[in-house]
């Protein structure tokens, strides 16, 4: 197990390094950063001056090395638009995004586990069909459109919830619904498929034959095993939620990392964009690492790779 963990950790570090290089190069190659800093319609002399001051005239690899070194020591540089340190800016906003991501994940699981289990227990009945229909419909609805429909119903028509901002818990309700319901279908499908497979296994027949109550068989024996792949999916979806919340945070002006990223992109504030991109990617690498380790711990057969 320790050997596997070390190997997996080494791979995660390499991927994180590759991701940092990829995000750095992507943003540099897709546009002239000096022009972005100097602003539209700047004179050539000004752009050259900016290029010198910011060290943008040096080879890309040197710039990357310096950026990586500073980043590793916790300094993400200065924001061009907000005119403050990027590190402080991120520390200020990351909480909102984490709350939103975990609340959405919790909502998705609360919806998906009972529906998935019921669908598996009564396959091809109305309850199975209903949850399948919900899953199919949920995957087809664009989440920004769904968010606007929620705003229309709960904020404009019923006036129960605020339209935008992030001051109180009420501001989080609609964003959580929009994101949580959007990621529910894959969980539901996975739990349904897993439960159907597990319920057909021999040890479930044995448990039933021993005379255990149906509830105990389903909850203790079947569900626990069906939840194993859910750990990996939850890690991947959490990564998606951190990155995918950019659309939802922007719609609701929820002041988290996603909204910060959107603002930085529209204002060509590349140090902020780069920092958020790096943080989200590294978070994804860490999450999948954790999921792999947890799965290997639960199921020793997975420790070979």
């Amino acid at each position: 197990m320790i050997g596997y963990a070390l190997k997996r950790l080494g791979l995660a570090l390499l991927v994180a390094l590759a991701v940092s290089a990829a995000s750095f190069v992507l943003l540099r190659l897709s546009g002239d950063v000096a022009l972005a800093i100097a602003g539209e319609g700047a004179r050539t002399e000004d752009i050259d001056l900016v290029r010198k001051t910011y060290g943008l005239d040096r080879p890309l690899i040197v710039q990357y090395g310096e950026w990586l070194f500073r980043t590793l020591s916790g300094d993400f540089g200065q924001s061009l638009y907000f005119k403050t340190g990027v590190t402080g800016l991120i520390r200020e906003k990351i909480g909102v995004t984490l709350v939103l991501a975990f609340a959405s994940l919790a909502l998705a699981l609360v919806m998906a586990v009972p529906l998935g289990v019921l669908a598996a227990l009564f396959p091809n009945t109305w309850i199975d069909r209903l949850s399948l229909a919900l899953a199919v419909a949920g995957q087809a609805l664009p989440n920004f459109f769904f968010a606007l429909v929620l705003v229309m119903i709960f904020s404009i028509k019923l006036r129960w919830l605020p339209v935008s901002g992030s001051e109180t818990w009420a501001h989080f309700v609609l964003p959580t619904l929009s994101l949580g319901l959007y990621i529910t279908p894959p969980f539901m499908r996975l739990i349904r498929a897993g439960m159907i497979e597990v319920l057909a296994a021999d040890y479930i027949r044995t448990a039933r034959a021993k005379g255990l109550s149906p509830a105990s068989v389903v909850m203790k024996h079947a569900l626990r095993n069906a939840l194993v792949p859910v750990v990996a999916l939850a890690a991947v979806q959490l990564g998606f939620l951190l990155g995918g919340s950019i659309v939802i945070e922007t719609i609701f002006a929820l002041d988290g990392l996603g909204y910060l990223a959107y603002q930085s992109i529209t204002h060509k504030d590349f140090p902020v964009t780069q920092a958020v991109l790096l943080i989200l990617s590294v978070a994804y690498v860490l999450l999948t690492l954790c999921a792999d380790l947890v799965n290997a711990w639960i199921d020793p057969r997975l420790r070979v790779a």
Partner: protein
Amino acid sequence: MAGLAEAGAVTALPELSQRALLWRRMRGHKGFLAGATLLVLIILASLLAPWIAPHDPYAQDLTKRMIPPIWEASGQWAHPLGTDNLGRDYLSRVLWGGQISLLIGLSVMVISGFIGAGLGLAAGYFGGRIDLAITFIITTRLALPVVLVALAVVAMISGSLLVVILILGLLKWDRFAVVMRSATQQVRGLDYVAAAEAAGASTPRIILREVLPNVAPQLIVVATVEAASAILLEAALSFLGLGVQPPLPSWGLMISEAKAYMFFSFWLIAIPGSALALLVLAINLVGDGLRDVLAPDGRA
């Protein structure tokens, strides 16, 4: 004699041909039928837009702004789905907008399909170091958040239909690669691949003639899922103002332009939003159906 007759019957069954069998299974799949019908209707409506759209989708008429659709009291038959804030006919814009979504879905699917299937086939067929290197590239790509990278790059280059297609095509090959890699690994060890190798067939020939046809079902299923996902992503980018640019009638962009009027004219959002949802629903139903029919073990 009876034995012979039976043997005859058994050999007669495959005469029904794989294709006919597949066709029969597809016709029996309700979800697939519903999805395919809806998809054909949407494709027809979009392609025929130049002939069936009642108005020019770009023609502005400021005297006819914000006419509501016909199901509201002041609707007019001249504009069945009403008009937008610039007096453009909404039905015409929705029909023409379908072309954009279909074009995005198809071209992103082709670009990312080529990249992803190529990488996946190579990794699965050659194994060893090549597999290790490609798996590393896939893992790195998976760690990058697509929406954020696409938004950032589009903002730097400035958005257009072509830029959006290229960026999404270059970003969204990951699922193709993952699925093709594991499907190829499974086919790789089978006898007919070994037979082709022993017969001295060249590697490209084996990959294209022996491996590819046998992993095609999984490829087709991923392709439908990815087309739907590309359509949703384009809509999200255009909705945020960093995708397809005005005055093109992209459904995502139409929702974005209607946001300012959602208080009194929610139909401006509801119509393109429903069109988008219907198209994605149709493609997903077709994809689910194809998965059931072509790749029943659900690997894709």
